């Protein structure tokens, strides 16, 4: 790149995607699979398992809030419903947990479709609070619903019990699929419409973006993957209560991951989830302080680093990993369409 007098402000943004990045990603995934089979200790696997699931949930929240402008505070409803689906299918109906996962996915999609019919009448803060109210309402209902044993919680009886390696591989698969879906979706015309909508709903609408359909698509995808991540989490964890399944802390985690990692960047939630899981493991040694420190970090990041870790890095160093941009600025010499 020529370093003329205009200096870094005009330095072009390098978009890192295309075959080279794909190969790097494939290698990373391959290494993760091989590491799993080489017999990493179970604790390390569980660590990674958590990171994968949080990346999925974070990416989905990012897709909604960072790319579409729908800030939800009620994503925990899908985690909880997925957990209960798995429990009901395995314990009450005595089926395999695969049926539980399938049921979680179906319920996630159907419920999000149902919610989207009335939640989408609201914008901004109203939407955020309405999603939370819905989640709390479901939680309260489950606390007095006998079918799910009310407040006393349910257990998953999985036979054969999946090993840690199994759940690790499933979580890894889910993570890869989720990232591919996010990337492909963002690269389509719908994806461009989404960011247009986030920046100015009315302008986007007048230019022919089908607001409701695009929003609905994103909301359902987010619900589906959040539910799948939730299902894997509860298969591994075993017991679910209304207060733990529909815990607002699920959304707190997603918000933290996205804010710290970098809202509106594809790679942000990956960085954010790693930071979140590592931090919460470290902070577990200081019981009581972990949420205080996480909350303080989130506030400091919003005040001093509003683009998050990845967002700031990308702006400073002028690069973009798997971005929506289709070519490197300023000249589209060889505009490859990797999607």
């Amino acid at each position, binding site marked *: 790149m020529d370093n003329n007098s205009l200096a870094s402000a005009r330095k072009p943004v390098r978009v890192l995607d295309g075959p080279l990045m794909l190969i790097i990603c494939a290698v990373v995934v391959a290494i993760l699979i091989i590491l799993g089979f080489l017999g990493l200790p179970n604790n390390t696997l569980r660590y990674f398992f958590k990171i994968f699931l949080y990346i999925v949930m974070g990416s989905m929240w990012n897709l909604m809030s960072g790319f579409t402008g729908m800030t939800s505070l009620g994503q925990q409803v899908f985690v909880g419903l997925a957990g209960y689906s798995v429990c009901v299918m395995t314990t009450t109906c005595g089926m395999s947990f695969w049926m539980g996962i399938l049921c979680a996915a179906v319920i996630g999609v159907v419920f999000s479709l149902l919610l989207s019919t009335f939640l989408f009448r*609201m914008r901004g*803060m109203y939407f955020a609070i309405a999603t939370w*109210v819905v989640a709390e*309402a479901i939680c309260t209902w489950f606390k007095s619903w006998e079918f799910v044993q009310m407040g006393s919680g349910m257990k998953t009886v999985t036979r054969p019990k999946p090993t840690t390696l199994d759940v690790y591989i499933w979580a890894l698969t889910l993570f890869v699929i989720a990232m591919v879906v996010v990337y492909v979706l963002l690269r389509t015309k719908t994806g461009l419409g989404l960011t247009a909508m986030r920046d100015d709903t009315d302008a986007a609408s007048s230019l022919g973006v089908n607001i409701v359909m695009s929003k609905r698509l994103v909301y359902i995808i987010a619900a589906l993957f959040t539910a799948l991540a939730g299902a894997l989490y509860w298969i591994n964890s075993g017991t679910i209560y209304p207060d733990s399944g529909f815990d607002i802390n699920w959304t707190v985690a997603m918000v933290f991951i996205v804010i710290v990692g970098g809202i509106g960047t594809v790679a942000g939630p990956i960085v954010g989830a790693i930071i979140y899981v590592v931090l919460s493991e470290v902070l577990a040694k200081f019981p009581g302080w972990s*949420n205080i420190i996480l909350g303080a970090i*989130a506030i400091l990041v*919003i*005040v001093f680093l509003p683009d998050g870790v990845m967002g700031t890095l990308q702006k400073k160093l002028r690069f973009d990993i798997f971005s929506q941009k289709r070519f490197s600025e300023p000249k589209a010499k060889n505009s490859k369409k990797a999607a």
Partner: protein
Amino acid sequence: MQIVQLIINGILLGGIYAVLGVGMTMIFGIVKLTNLAHGEFVILGAYASTLISTTLGVDPILTLIVTIPIMFLIGMGLQSGLINRVMLKGSEPALLVTFGLSIILQDLMLLLFTADARHAGGAYSSIVFNIGPISIALLDVILLAISLVTIIILSLFLKKTYLGRSIRATSDDTQAASLMGVSVKKTYGIAMGIAMATAAVAGLCIALKWTFYPSSGGGYLLTAFGVVVIGGMGSIPGTMVAGVILGLAQVIGGANWGQLISYLIMVLFLVVRPQGLFNK
């Protein structure tokens, strides 16, 4: 007769809900901010009143003399030191900052005050009047009176004083108000201070009426938001009506279904009439 009793209980409860929501509705209407930490502010007020009254041995209601100014200053400090800064970046960062504040406050209270249930009691706590078949607890009447007085003082302040007018002007048109010489940031600070002061009152009511924990804030936040949604943001008469509606829902649904019915009413209002009952 049972219905009359239910309605009376609902109205008495509605006073507490109205004062819970009035701070939220002010911030919503004036600062244009969804304050997700309002529930924790209320619980902070509840702890402050309980602790002061037990250490000094005074009646919990008297502690308001101390808690209101302190909470006012905390609110002003938070708004001018932190929230005003992030509000420049848009409404979402500000929303998330208050979310962060709520997590921090909740766990700080857990560290400071442990997870034990707390309750503040006065000499009048167990007195009950019986008028024919209807019984009314003196405590409930006192709490309703406190709530009403708070709300009336607040609305007089907003209507009659210069400061109140400048607050309303800012809420109607921020730009015009700032052109007329109103300092918007200072107004926001004062508005948050007032909201915190009402949170102190709401906290006292909750401490007297129920037991509370550091984690109780989330539920009260949703109730406060329900008051905003049903009453219409920034509307003080709406706040009172919404409080009574939620109070009735709570009483009719009882311990098991009251909360669920309140949530359903909230969702219904959000869908059918998101601007609330009493909006301009």
